[in-house]
């Protein structure tokens, strides 16, 4: 039963995976937008990726996977910037999306996390719908290429999204070294404990063999360099947004903002070796621009 559902779901995901792979071409390209206004930076980055119209189809849902895990304030860098979230949802709706759905399984109690992060209010203001997934929102899927993670309960909206945006915040992490785009999916599964107990880095890489977002925007406006993921910790201000289709390349670049080599982060190395994407920045075309 679950196997059947899983096959059906993965067949939904497969075309997008193929598309994403072909879209990034032989040498993956990532776009690093420098600036101070999240709205303009977002617009500039998306324009380089092909524009909103190429991702958001009229009258179809957009699912936004951001990071609103902690009951910490926007300036503390524990969660995605609410200003960025607001701009993104507004743009999606302007491009004809039927609804922007924001499922987030927070770590802190949901109410506090959504309120204190400012994201609950930002989503509401911009017309999206945010919710904390309950048991009935999850669907068990098989992860055929997983080494440690063979199956997972994933939020159904994430699985079925016609347009899936991954919008993590870059920050340090006690267990996984850094929280970047691949790590961000832990907020869409029900049993995070299993990942932690069964080689966290391998599970993070395994899940990225399966989940293929339409595109990735990493919030690196301010990054928490110590005491992550919850903080409060020391902050640095790269004032960047990182856009791309290849999660490994995006994460590899984001790792350098913390003064690390990409392969210092074990899951980037594992994902690179598994062929999920390219974590070797010499083979990645990094395009810097200002907005």
């Amino acid at each position, binding site marked *: 039963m679950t196997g059947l559902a899983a096959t059906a779901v993965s067949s939904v995901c497969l075309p997008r995976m193929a598309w994403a792979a072909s879209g990034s071409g032989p040498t993956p390209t990532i776009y690093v937008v420098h600036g101070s206004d999240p709205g303009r930076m977002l617009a500039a980055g998306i324009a380089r990726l092909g524009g909103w119209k190429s991702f958001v189809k009229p009258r179809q849902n957009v699912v936004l996977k951001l990071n609103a895990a902690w*009951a910490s304030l926007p300036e503390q860098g524990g969660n995605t910037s609410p200003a960025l979230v607001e701009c993104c949802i507004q743009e999606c709706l302007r491009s004809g999306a039927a609804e922007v759905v924001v499922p987030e399984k927070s770590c*802190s109690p949901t109410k506090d996390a959504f309120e204190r992060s400012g994201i609950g209010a930002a989503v509401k203001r911009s017309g999206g719908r945010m919710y904390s997934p309950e048991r009935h929102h999850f669907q068990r899927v098989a992860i055929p290429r997983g080494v440690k993670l063979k199956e997972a309960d994933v939020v159904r909206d994430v699985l079925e999204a016609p347009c899936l945006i991954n919008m993590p915040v870059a920050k340090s992490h*006690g267990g996984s070294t850094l929280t970047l785009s691949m790590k961000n999916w832990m907020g869409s599964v029900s049993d995070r404990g299993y990942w*932690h*107990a069964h080689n966290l880095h391998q599970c993070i890489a395994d899940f990225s063999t399966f989940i293929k977002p339409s595109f990735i925007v990493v919030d690196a406006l301010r990054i928490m360099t110590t*005491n992550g993921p919850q903080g409060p910790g020391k902050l640095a201000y790269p004032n960047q947004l990182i856009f791309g289709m290849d999660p490994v390349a995006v994460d590899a670049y984001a790792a350098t903002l913390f003064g690390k080599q990409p392969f210092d982060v*074990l899951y980037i190395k594992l994902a690179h070796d598994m062929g999920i994407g390219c974590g070797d920045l010499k083979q990645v075309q990094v395009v810097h621009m200002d907005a």
Partner: protein
Amino acid sequence: MHHQRTILRIGILALAAIVSAQVFPLFSGVVILPAASPLLAICAAIAARSVSLVSLIGLPLLVLALVRGRWFCHHLCPTGCLLIWVGKLLRRHHFRMQRFPVFGLGLCLVMLGSALAGFPLLLNLDPLVQFNGFFSIWRSTDWTWMAGLPGLGLIMLILITLIWPHLWCERICPLGALQALLGISGRFGRNVIGRKPVPQPAVSDTPVCPGSFSAPAGRGVAGRRMFLVLVFGAGLGWVLRRVGATDLGSAGPIRPPGTVAEPVLWGLCSRCGSCMRTCPENIIIPDLGTGGPGSWLTPRLDFSQRYCNEWCRLCTGACPTGAIGRLSLEAKRALSIGTARVDRTRCLAWNEAQYCMVCHEFCSYQAVRIVEHNGVNCPEVDEALCRGCGACQSHCPAEPVRAIMVHAREQASLVAKPDKSRLPTIFVPFKRD
């Protein structure tokens, strides 16, 4: 007249149920019903040697009792209204009420006496506490049988009333006895004990009107006996407080933030269940004796699924007796209620070299330090920062026993001068020991 009274009683019942079931949740709303009892307020104030804001909620009924004696019992008491109807169900009025002595007066005096000794006993017998305990259990989000325990009192009262109608209100209820007592001392007291013996029929064949105590002896004898019972209560409280003072140390139960120290809690807690009902995380559960014999049904924290949220202080505003003191959010966040300890033999990082650190991830207070061991990050608890909130324990993926567990400690603030942020006590004639 009869209809008016019925309508009034239905209204009272509905209102009390709405308040205690927290239909319209307010901060501290759950405290209103039990705190309205003057008996609880007096005992708590005597025991604490101070009058808190919450005990003022009992003032109106105190004044009412001084003026009108037991008028409250059959007009306003929700438990009384309920029991009067239950008593009518079986139409068994033909039992000899006279055979039963007025336990209530004795109970009330024992409660007051033990409160003088700083260790109030039997607070749970207050009818408003019983009522609140039953109706507030429906507030629980995850209903477990443990959450239902504070509701058993009212069910017991109903069973007693089914066997002996009116017995509770007439003879046992200590709140009723207190009001009768206050009614005598009040100038306009209506219920006159001792001044003029009230003749009672040997068999009461009409629904007995609560509020008609008859004292067999004259005022002087009654007064002497009452004093002796009061002294007995004080002695009992003094002895039980010392007997109960077993120091379990870190093996004891973890209490909600702001809870008074251990043996005092056993007396001061009225077991009304308000704190358990008000906790949004449902981590406050009734203790079933892990904290010693007197700890039965007192609140204890269970971190097996969830933890005490940094930004919540609801339980500190839910206690009618001050067994859990009111704390400002700042004071609550600074308060350490326990200390986490890592068991390295079970820890996935220490023992299996897993990249885990869930405890570090969830700690809101930076109390989990990272130590590198065998090339992976391993957790170590900084006891000077640990608040004992249980976030680490509730999320630890080690199975079947968690590798990081919170152990009890004496509650203490981890920042200097926390008392400034405590909400004010109105009147403190004595320093509390």
